[in-house]
């Protein structure tokens, strides 16, 4: 009994000691004492090489895993497709990969790529064509050779041209099954009218494309001087540079691809596309600018506060959190170095609350334009834009990919290093000035995809009426709106 008491007392004493020695949990997150990060944005210069054949390559050795990857950017894009042959760059890139090469029949090529579990791809977007390959490092030589075959020696087998064309037509037939792509297409049309970025491929534009067109286009754009590559993985940097210098052709004095001029020219104040669905997909757009532009960072801060940063943004609080009107609501300030981007607010809400959600969004646009943002919002937005950098440059692959992209966009080599200073230098007044300049509610173009009857039936919400915008109503995805040039 006595022993027990002594033991108990000892336990009590030890426990008290343990508690006194154990640091308490901070009372709030703001009381946490964080150690310094001790990290700086890595610079890209040490990774950059101009190879003997003139190819610009960012190369990083990374022996953490037996892995190799290479990606590349070609200066060309769907907006460069010749008029009347929209879709040609998408078709070209898919046939380059699937239509065989000088050294391999298409079936053999597929079999080798699958056998060694490689990834080889080429694809086109509006302002760039990209290619990539990846494999276990032991197969790097084979993978690089295959990539060079695909990029520079495609065979355009007749049978495969026919096959891929027919698959492309099937994809076109179903591209508007879901509402999101309808909104994308209608919005581009609404904001850019006849700009090349708003033109869609149709069966007749695909039908005009011949094998010779594909061969000619390939010859025109897949030139060493028209591309930049980034490679990382378990290899010797010198060895890889030598291989790339041999496998990629010698750069010639050929000029870079030229992009067409595109301007923001809204087609109407409001476009409503009828689709028998239970929600309206809505985008409220405003013209922005082509980069580089001095206002860019202020607009990014403005966007972060208004709707660019998920739940904590003003739109997220008002439309989603307070009212429960939407699952997705956000704003986006486009970044485009080729043609002027747009600023938009987007959300989906049941058809019956479309006008209500627009009215709430408009209130927030007006409020930020009249009163600007608070000190706390400015400070938070700056942190959001800057503090995520360690995640952006997490691996050697990230470093070379980001710097290859940076050079493709013709930004200065120190772009990422000076980015935090540029953002930190901005004030509330800069953000307010940006809001006044770019967020004029009178300039908003409304694009809506939803059940027209239900939307207009509920169009009686105080503060906003779609009818008053004199909307152009498209009867569906077959409407001439999508074909207009």
């Amino acid at each position, binding site marked *: 009994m006595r022993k027990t008491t002594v033991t108990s007392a000892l336990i009590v004493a030890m426990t008290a000691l343990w508690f006194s020695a154990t640091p308490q*949990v901070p009372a709030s997150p703001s009381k946490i004492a964080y150690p310094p*990060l001790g*990290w700086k944005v890595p610079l890209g210069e040490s990774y950059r090489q101009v190879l003997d054949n003139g190819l610009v390559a960012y190369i990083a050795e990374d022996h953490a*895993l037996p892995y190799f990857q290479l990606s590349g950017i070609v200066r060309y894009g769907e907006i460069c497709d010749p008029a009347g042959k929209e879709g040609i760059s998408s078709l070209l890139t898919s046939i380059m990969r699937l239509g065989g090469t000088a050294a391999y029949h298409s079936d053999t090529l597929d079999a080798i790529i699958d056998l060694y579990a490689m990834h080889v791809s080429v694809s086109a977007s509006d302002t760039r064509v990209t290619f990539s390959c990846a494999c276990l490092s032991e197969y790097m030589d084979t993978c690089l050779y295959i990539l060079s075959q695909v990029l520079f020696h495609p065979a355009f087998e007749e049978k495969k041209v026919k096959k891929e064309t027919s698959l492309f037509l099937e994809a076109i037939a*179903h591209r508007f099954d879901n509402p999101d792509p309808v909104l994308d297409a209608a919005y581009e049309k609404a904001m850019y009218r006849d700009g090349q970025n708003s033109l869609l491929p149709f069966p007749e534009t695909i039908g005009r494309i011949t094998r010779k067109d594909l061969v000619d286009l390939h010859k025109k754009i897949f030139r060493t001087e028209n591309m930049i590559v980034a490679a990382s993985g378990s290899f010797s940097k010198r060895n890889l540079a030598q291989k790339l210098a041999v496998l990629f052709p010698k750069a010639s004095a050929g000029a870079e691809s030229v992009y067409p001029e595109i301007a923001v020219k809204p087609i109407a104040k409001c476009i409503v596309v009828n689709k028998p669905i239970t929600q309206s997909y809505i985008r409220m757009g405003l013209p922005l600018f082509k980069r580089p532009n001095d206002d860019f960072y202020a607009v990014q801060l403005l966007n972060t506060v208004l709707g660019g*940063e998920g739940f*904590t943004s003003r739109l997220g609080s008002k439309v989603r959190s307070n009212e*429960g009107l939407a699952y997705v609501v956000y704003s986006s300030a486009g970044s485009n170095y080729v043609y002027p981007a747009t600023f938009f607010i987007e959300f989906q809400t049941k058809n019956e609350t479309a006008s209500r959600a627009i009215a709430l969004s408009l209130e927030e646009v007006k409020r930020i334009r009249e009163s600007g943002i608070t000190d706390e919002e400015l400070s938070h937005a700056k942190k959001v834009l800057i503090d995520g950098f360690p*995640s952006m440059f997490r691996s050697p692959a990230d470093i070379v990919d980001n710097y290859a992209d940076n050079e493709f966009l013709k930004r200065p080599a120190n772009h990422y290093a000076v980015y935090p200073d540029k953002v930190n230098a901005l004030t509330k007044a800069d953000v307010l000035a940006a809001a006044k300049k770019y967020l004029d509610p009178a300039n908003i173009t409304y694009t809506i995809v939803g059940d027209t009857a239900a939307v207009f039936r509920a169009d009686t919400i105080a503060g906003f009426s779609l009818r008053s915008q004199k909307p152009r109503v498209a009867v569906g995805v077959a409407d001439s709106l999508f074909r207009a040039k």
Partner: protein
Amino acid sequence: MKKAFLIPLLLLVSTSAFAYDINVPVTYDTLKNGMRIIVVPDTNVAIVSCRLYYFVGSMYEQFSRSGLSHMYEHMMFKGTHRLNTSDFAKESVWLAKIDSVDKIIFSLKSHGIFDTSAQTVKLRKEISGFMEKERAYIKKDEIWELYMGNGGTHLNAWTADDMTAYIVTLPKNKVELFYWIESDRMSNPVFREFYSEREVVLEERRMRYENQPANRFFEYLNSLFYLAHPYRLPTIGWKSDIENYTIQDLSSHVKQFYTPDNAVIILVGNIDPKKAVADIKHYFGAIPRAATPKQEVVTREPQPIGETRFTVRDDAAPQIDMMFHTPGYDNDDLYKLDVLESILSGRSGRLYDRLVNREDLCTGAEAENAVRLNNGYFEINASLKKDTDPAKVEKIIKEEIAALAKTPPSVREMERIKNTIRMSFVSNLRSLEGLSDRLAWFERLGSWKAMLQYPDRIAAIKPEDVPAIVKKYIDFDKATVGVLLQKQ
């Protein structure tokens, strides 16, 4: 009996099936309260993927309450006694009023009086009035703001049938913020803005299922495939269930499942495992286990007694989908079914080669072996060209399966599969977040160690194992077949 003390266990495991060694330095620990910890250090990065997984999802839900785990995925961002509030004492007054009305709604619901009834609508109006008063004390989305304002990326949460995850990637010096917020969310959740968030979830359901024809098709098909097991419930929940959730429903669900003994923290990145374990113990160690231990699902799918067929016409690309019942984890056959999946899938796989390349009937074709804790499925899917007769595609799929039931795959096919597994293994290690999810998934099934053993188990499979596995599981007479046709 559970171990009542810390057992640090450092395992440097290398895979043996490869021609090279890959070390995955895993530290595994279990706290007294049953909470599991997995740490994988990687000093090459300046960040840490921080993920907290609860082993709960729609398989633990019931009719009338489907989707509650997903609802709580949303509600976890609404704060705690200390987060998202400027004065919890004052706010509590209004929370209590909301709670008392919610109890009445809960009681009405149990008598079959739904959310659309005049009585309930009136009560909800009352709640809205209290909510407006409570709003004066709500600090909107503070959790989100804290993470994002401290360099957080990949901030999100997700719910599956057997697991729910709360995820963020932080700079290496900010990991303590994760411990603070997640331990607080585990201990003191507050169900703020419940009714408006219920509307948000309904909007999510409309967006993901009602207005996406292919997703809607698969939601129905899954519910037809599972006859008895709660896997038949959609993770997001049925619409009528969401419309009738109450705070009481959610509260009892949370008490039962969101406890340390049903959770694992996984940290992958630039972090010292020893310190991480000590810090996690410091923050989470005092949180009690669930009052009542979690009840596992005992229901298992009965053997099907015939074919189930489902045909839908919608605005979507036509496709045919065939599902076959497979065992739950762990079973040697699952690895053989993975091999079968690889033989059938890919551009040079048998389905694509026959249906797309040679017969020109489809735009794509593949197979998937879906491994699940209790009962899985093997699925064959083909996307049809516009004028293709689905019966013809079905016949060809049957021919390809019959061929595999008769003749083992070639040496080349087996080589391809092994390379695919190796590539997939290495690729998965390249992403901190991806590695975290893989470890969590295997831990959920039994042990994270199985992730490292996986390539060896695949390598051990011989070509002659394949015909037997095909005969055992791919029985068209007992399949669930879904046909999605283009609306005329």
